[in-house]
């Protein structure tokens, strides 16, 4: 384009060494996704802030945390541990999908995306099962005092974000099946994978906080 500029009169025909073309550096759409993830980090920071505020207040007043009677409700049993393992593993399959398309392997990417999608759905199914057990077997719900409110709000919003990621993966899988990505053009896959990793990392912090630290 610069070469054509003099034909258009008052144009910056010469470069002065400070050119900032968008072809350099991070892709604009990926930058948008990373900024969005930055805002999401602050959203979960607000929820974590509420958790530690309640926890610190209870401990400062010499009360137990978790509140009495709820000590053993949230336990790292078989379902949460399995769900966590699956979600963490799905980050690796997601990254593998990105790697495949980076090498121009559309089929490999589609397969890895399909596996990631199934793992994401499995996580959501196990979370639903966990919720069911808590609600029915323990009578522990969002209205069971601050502890229940925090648990269900934090994991619920995380689950909603996993669902958002599942929708994103579905879209790029459908686009992948339609052959819309190539080794050079797959920014949507990169953006969705960044979001998926973010969702995964949030869960690691949630799991550590809610199930172990308490």
């Amino acid at each position, binding site marked *: *384009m610069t070469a054509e500029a003099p034909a*258009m009169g008052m144009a*910056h025909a010469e470069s002065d060494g400070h050119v900032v073309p968008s072809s350099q550096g991070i892709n604009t759409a990926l930058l*948008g996704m990373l900024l969005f993830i930055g805002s999401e980090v602050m*959203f979960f920071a607000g929820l974590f802030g509420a958790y530690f*505020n309640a926890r610190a207040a209870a401990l400062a007043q010499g009360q137990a945390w978790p509140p009495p009677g709820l000590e053993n409700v949230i336990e790292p049993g078989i379902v949460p541990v399995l769900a966590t393992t699956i979600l963490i593993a799905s980050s690796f399959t997601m990254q593998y999908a990105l790697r495949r398309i980076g090498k121009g392997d559309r089929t490999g990417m589609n397969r890895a995306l399909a596996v990631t999608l199934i793992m994401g759905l499995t996580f959501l199914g196990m979370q639903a099962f966990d919720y069911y057990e808590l609600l029915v077997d323990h009578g522990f719900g*969002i209205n069971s005092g601050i502890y229940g*409110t925090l648990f269900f*709000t934090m994991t619920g919003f995380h689950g909603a974000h996993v669902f958002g990621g599942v929708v994103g993966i579905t879209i790029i899988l459908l686009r992948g099946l339609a052959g819309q990505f190539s080794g050079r053009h797959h920014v949507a896959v990169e953006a969705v994978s960044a979001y998926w990793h973010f969702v995964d990392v949030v869960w690691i912090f949630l799991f550590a906080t809610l199930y172990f630290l308490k």
Partner: protein
Amino acid sequence: MATTTLAPRAATYQGRRSWLYGWLTTTDHKKIGAMYIFTSFLFFIAGGVMALLIRTELAAPGVQFVDPETYNQLFTIHGTTMIFLFVMPMNVGLANYIVPLQIGAADMAFPRINALSFWMIPLGGLLLFSGYAVGGAANAGWTGYVPLSAQGGAGLDLWLMSLVLLGMSSVLGAINFLATIFKLRAPGMTLLRMPLFVWNTLVTSVLLLFAIPVITAGLMMLFIDRNYGGGFFDPALGGNPVLWQHVFWFFGHPEVYILILPAFGIVTEILPVFSRKPLFGYKAFVFATASIGALGFSVWAHHMFTTGAVYLPFFSFFTFLIAVPTGIKFFNWLATMWRGQLRFSTPLLYALGFISLFLIGGLDGAFLAVVPFDFHVQDTYWVVSHLHYVLVAGAVFGIFAGLFYWFPKMTGRMLSERLGKWQFVLLFVGTNLTFFPQHLLGLDGMIRRIVDYAPNPGWTELNLLSTIGAFMIAASVVPFIWNVFTTLRGPRNAPDDPWEGNTLEWATTSPPPPYNFDSLPPIRSERPLFDLRHGLTGHGPAAVTPQLPAGDPADHREAAQ
């Protein structure tokens, strides 16, 4: 990038679609910016009518025509409207129109998301005001403190949903501005050659990006408390009411910089142009803007001194610290005007009004940073006076300065200077008449947010003065509307660069064509249009003839200074 900025004026697609369809479906940053400005101005009038109702009720002691419940709804919706539906979208509208032009871009980075951000604004407004249709709008103040906001009817739920929606609009807008500023700058437009308005938009966007999600989390928590038996803010369930104040003000204090930084940017654009001098201390401005943004996240609890739940010395100290970068800005503004050839056109009048009155708002804010004084005037009209001096005399004056400055660019028509000056006088006198007496009422202990007050000595007179001032402010809007109306019906009389501006928006036609630029001048300083008019010799004092060494043209400028 080069492809977009240097694209020849594209012939727009002329389908059989109607004019209305074109506006409703547009993704052009200029049309979206214009819609933001128009919509937020309507909300300005709605919020202003509420303010008049409030001031009319307060003109004399006793409850005259607004019952207490209606009064609570009035000040809640007035505050929420003015902040979230007037000042914020108005700032976004101006930035939407001007930022891509100032950095030499063809549009925003994500034009369709830009349209989405805009259309969330009228929808959010509809949600907020629909409270009146379901048995009473929100009535817990714009700060929505619990436990008051945990009670109340469906109006409060609509208020919560409205704020969540408006917050999403702001976050998407912030992402869009950041991506635009980082990725779509024209060749040569380095970060330290960006106009200060763009810098202020950048810092504002960072604040929005990190502050809004926190209040969104808080609004969600309150919604869960209200509707699903949650216990976040209910001590009976183990919750903590002060948590709401933390979450709210962690957003709320950056929010006040979100409201004022664009006005800082506008004033910083206007002063050098109308003083016919270069801006004094460009890099200091950038540094001060960034520090105000960063410090904005460390002072939220100065809104909570009297809760007894915060460490007073820390928050008091950091609040005072913000006066340093703000002071740098003030002295740089004064130094920019010093010995300049001032042209007292309407934009400069508004900029001067901003500087003088925002100083008052800043100083009475510094009073509030003094902890013992804050305990004395907590929840009094001192606070009301302070926040209106920074928001009306600050943000609103900045907005009118920007509207008068950029109106010729947006429409190709010059607004009437005579009507503009009448408006300025009315608004300047009205603002001081409304809000200065409130300082005295606050010192005397008059509590805010109450429909009635005792007929203590002096209170009636001061309140009456304040009410008269409020009607003067309302009267000042009339010449503005008339001005815009008659100008838009008049001929296109504005040249491309009516003010002899410095920045790129004046390099294109008025109004700019689709995709903005046929071609761009070389960008080798923060004033590319000044360079174009005067060449590189224009930077130094007239007597100095610079000896230009060979090499990078950017270095010539440094040598000439």
